[in-house]
């Protein structure tokens, strides 16, 4: 255990002076692999992850041909393709794909993201069986339902997971994953309890008792859990890590200029987490039932919650060191920036840290805020450690630290450079749900990238107390939170203007490595109560600004008082775009992404969660009893596959409209064959002869490692 902090100090000492790293970023797309054919009455999860990855690895150059060949829509520019990288995931029915090299901030780069995502999907599909499809639903609607839901099928109640709903074979067989699951279970002293409130429809029996729970099973001691109240009324009950870690997310990792900028980005993006979670909501179904929540977050949190009864506060502390208020997978508990605007009142009053580790880090020269952050992460036991790691610790390696770091799944992650310092300080934005199409996934990825540039350029300030971010995270779970709920958000995101008089108040725009020596204005207003700094806002108001929200909100009224108008994240991004040189086609492409997000936030377009709910509600097989049957699931997945197929081929979804309900509500005019914008953009590009500059971003050997982790 002691070696952990030594390793961290080693990393920190080596990299704290690292400067002027370029802005690089990467996205991660996670897929479910399903087995679907029109003639088969069932859609199943494919457990062939290992075979698919092997096929991908074996095809030496991942030969890009057929559908994915250069020149096709999925590929784009001929001969200029960096092949994507595929990774295993916890779920054996999952696949993850990242770009072959990180993206830069050349604005034209931002428009290649979507094409690259399509290429990834295309290549993945090419290495699957004809009936297998990579889809980007967050969860498989009927995972853990009675009967067959995987191909091949295995009996439940295995020795590792001891789940009465899913077989051990649901997890990636690499030793790391079942070990992780078993360690969590054994540390808790019982199985995980993933309980989601069920959605109460007209014919849903009430109180609702999860009909799939087997109270008579006697294979493992943990089978007592349900007899001891693990499955309360009105909740869908799940009992294994796979129910959470089997969810697909959209995660973005940014490289910062230096540690200071990284710490700033970590803090400033943190309050945006719950907003983006609600805005990307895509998870309304679990284990064959409609849930009363729209997002995956808490389910993952519970699925990896390894806290003991003592740590949970259910028993007096005896063997454990402390009570821990949150799961290892939870919203952030720390702010870490050196920003002078970070007020002590924003910090989490219930933060648990390991004081010994903190002291060691302080003794090693680390500052208090960062030492507190890591001393907080280090309250967790390492849950996967391989023997070889313990025997010989190499201080030049970061594996040991990474082990703790990568099993702390907070909604932001602050990532130090690896041992060889080949990559800079990075920040990962983790709350977003995966979207059905790559158009949407690219839109949200690019949006977050642009927000970071606006934050750094305009020196924006989104600080609110961490407890309010926690509260927002809960709020984001509600059905239709996107439109019907309000979130705490900072009223004024702008910095106090610094004066230049009498010295250098000239700001170092990106992570002040030079101290601002300027005199602060005598009239700098004294800080008022923290409570006056924030108020409740709808997602629409946060994203589009007060004026737009007032004009468009149907579900909620905005609280903004005179002088409290919030400018909106999209107008801030547009201000940023207005201040940089950008060619017409690029601006047009980016405007399309911002337009999607604007419309999702205002409710003009639906979230995936809402669309899935409506799809189910309108299905002739649905009996208004919250049950999502095999047939409904098959049709839903079938629709998603059809959308994906068309997108991949660059075809519009026009022919699906009418066949698949509410596509206009989900996508509006986007993804139509000749959308006004896309069409003109193509014409414009055609006029330009599809010129593409090969602006190779220097990657310093950064390839697959860039955004690699859980």
């Amino acid at each position, binding site marked *: 255990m002691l070696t952990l902090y030594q390793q961290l100090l080693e990393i920190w000492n080596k990299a704290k002076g690292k400067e002027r790293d370029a802005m690089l970023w990467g996205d991660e797309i996670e897929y479910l692999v399903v087995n679907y054919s029109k003639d088969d009455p069932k859609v199943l999860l494919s457990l062939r992850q290992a075979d698919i990855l092997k096929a991908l690895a074996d095809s030496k150059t991942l030969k890009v041909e057929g559908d994915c060949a250069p020149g096709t829509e999925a590929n784009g520019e001929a001969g200029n393709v960096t092949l994507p990288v595929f990774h295993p995931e916890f779920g054996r029915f999952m696949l993850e794909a990242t770009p072959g090299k990180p993206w830069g901030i050349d604005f034209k780069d931002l428009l290649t993201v979507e094409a690259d995502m399509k290429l990834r999907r295309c290549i993945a599909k090419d290495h699957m069986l004809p009936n297998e499809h990579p889809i980007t639903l967050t969860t498989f609607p009927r995972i853990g339902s009675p009967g067959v839901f995987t191909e091949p099928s295995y009996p439940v109640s295995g020795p590792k997971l001891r789940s009465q709903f899913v077989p051990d074979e649901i997890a990636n067989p690499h030793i790391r994953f079942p070990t992780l699951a078993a360690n969590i279970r054994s540390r808790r002293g019982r199985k995980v309890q993933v309980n989601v409130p069920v959605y109460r429809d007209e014919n849903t029996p009430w109180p609702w008792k999860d009909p799939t729970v087997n109270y008579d099973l006697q294979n493992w001691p943990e089978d007592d859990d349900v007899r001891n109240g693990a499955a309360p009324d009105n909740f869908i009950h799940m009992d294994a890590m796979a129910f959470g870690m089997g969810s697909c997310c959209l995660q973005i990792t940014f490289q910062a200029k230096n540690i200071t900028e990284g710490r700033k980005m970590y803090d400033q993006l943190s309050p945006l987490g719950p907003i983006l979670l609600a805005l990307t909501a895509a998870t309304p179904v679990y284990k064959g039932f409609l849930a009363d929540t729209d997002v995956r977050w808490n389910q993952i949190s519970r699925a990896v919650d390894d806290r003991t009864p003592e740590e949970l506060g259910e028993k007096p502390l005896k063997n454990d060191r402390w009570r821990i208020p949150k799961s290892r997978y939870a919203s952030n508990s720390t702010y870490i920036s050196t920003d002078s605007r970070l007020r002590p009142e924003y910090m989490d009053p219930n933060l648990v840290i390991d004081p010994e580790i903190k002291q060691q880090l302080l003794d090693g020269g680390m500052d208090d805020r960062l030492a507190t952050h890591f001393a907080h992460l280090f309250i967790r036991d390492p849950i996967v450690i391989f023997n070889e790691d313990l025997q010989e610790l190499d201080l030049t390696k970061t594996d040991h630290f990474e082990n703790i770091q990568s099993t702390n799944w907070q909604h932001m992650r602050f990532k130090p450079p690896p041992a060889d310092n080949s990559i800079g300080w990075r920040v990962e934005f983790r709350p977003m749900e995966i979207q059905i199409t790559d158009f949407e996934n690219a839109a949200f990825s690019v949006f977050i990238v642009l927000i970071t540039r606006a934050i750094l350029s305009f020196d924006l300030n989104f600080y609110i107390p961490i407890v309010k971010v926690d509260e927002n995270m809960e709020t984001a779970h509600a059905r239709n939170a996107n439109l019907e709920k309000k979130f705490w958000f900072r009223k004024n995101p*702008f910095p106090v203007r610094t*004066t230049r008089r009498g010295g250098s108040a000239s700001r*170092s725009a990106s992570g002040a490595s030079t101290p601002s020596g300027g005199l602060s204005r005598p009239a700098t207003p004294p800080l008022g109560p923290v409570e006056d700094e924030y108020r409740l806002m709808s997602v629409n108001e946060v994203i589009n600004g007060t004026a737009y929200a007032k004009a468009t909100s149907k579900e909620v009224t905005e609280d903004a008082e005179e002088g409290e108008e919030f400018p909106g994240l999209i107008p801030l991004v547009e201000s940023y775009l207005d201040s940089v*040189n950008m060619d017409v086609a690029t601006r047009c492409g980016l405007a399309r992404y911002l337009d999607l997000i604007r419309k999702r936030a205002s409710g003009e377009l639906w979230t995936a969660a809402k669309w899935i709910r409506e799809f189910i509600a309108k299905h002739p097989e649905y009996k208004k009893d919250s049950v999502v049957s095999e047939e409904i699931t098959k049709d839903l997945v079938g629709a998603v596959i059809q959308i994906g197929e068309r997108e991949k081929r660059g075809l519009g979804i026009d022919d699906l409209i009418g066949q698949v309900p509410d596509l206009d509500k989900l996508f509006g005019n986007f993804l139509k064959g000749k959308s006004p914008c896309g069409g003109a953009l193509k014409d*414009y590009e055609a006029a330009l002869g599809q010129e593409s500059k090969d602006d190779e971003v220097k990657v310093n050997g950064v390839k697959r490692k860039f955004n690699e982790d859980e």
Partner: protein
Amino acid sequence: MAKLILSTGNIVSGGPSIVRKPGASNLELINSLKVSFQDAQIDYADEIENTTASPTTTTATNGTSNGVHEVQATNGANTTTSTTVTPGPLYWTEKTQNDTTETIFVPRIDWESASLSEERSQYDITVKIFFLPTTSPDVSARAAYTQEALGLVLKELGGISDVDLLVVSFPGMSFDGDCEWEADKLNAAQGDDEVEIATWQGAVEKLYTQGKVKRLGISEFGTEKLSRFIKRVGVKPAVDQINIKNCCNVPPPLAKLAKEQNVELLVHSDCTDILPEGTLRELLGPQGAGLLADPKVDGSQALSGNLTPQWVVKYTAVVKNRGVIENKGYFAGAELN
């Protein structure tokens, strides 16, 4: 005659003035000038009591004392500079005098703090000069304005010696209309080809040949104007900035021409008449910054006379490989007769 140099300082972290308003607008300039004036009035408030009623000259001090602000020769451009007290309402401004011209900086500029945080090569620096409807069409005057504007920007960005792109905006041009095709047609008859070409040849091209500007650009040139322009100028523009409502609707002939001539079409959202005379008067007048005298009040120490805006320059310094805007601001020049 006196010359006024208005400046905003770095507005990129200056708060709400940066927030975009729909459509082409000069709100960013006007609002940030207002903020800049207000800030300076607060910053230099402690000097009000020291200012005296009538201008006197002093050589006793360096720096500021007794309301005197000593001014160093600016950037080698002016050789002789005298030191002048700034009287009452002008306490937050700064006057310099060389042989022929009196220049008043509104507000004072603390050049010491002017800098970029990294070396020049890290930045993409774009400068856009706006010739206004009130700008003299005389080429030598325009050459002087351009020199002066660029000189101020180079100095403001820490004494650098060149910029990456200089875009020239001429008055009377727009890309307005609901239909971009229509706008492109209308554009053909806008502006004044002769003055624009003469300005380009006499005031702009040499900055390129001297190496002070790496690329030149123009703004709001539609298909016909651009094609006429290119035929006659020596250094072809590398950039044409256009402001169209729906950026997806670039008129195909313009896209084609731009492609053939290797002109990059960039978007912008500035209006061409960025500093109208009346707006400037309001900004500086008794209801604004109080710099211009109220004709109804006798014996005012404020400035009086006819104020004519001559040029506006916008500058932006972006850290190249991080896409972070580090510095953005405006200068404007006006003449007081």
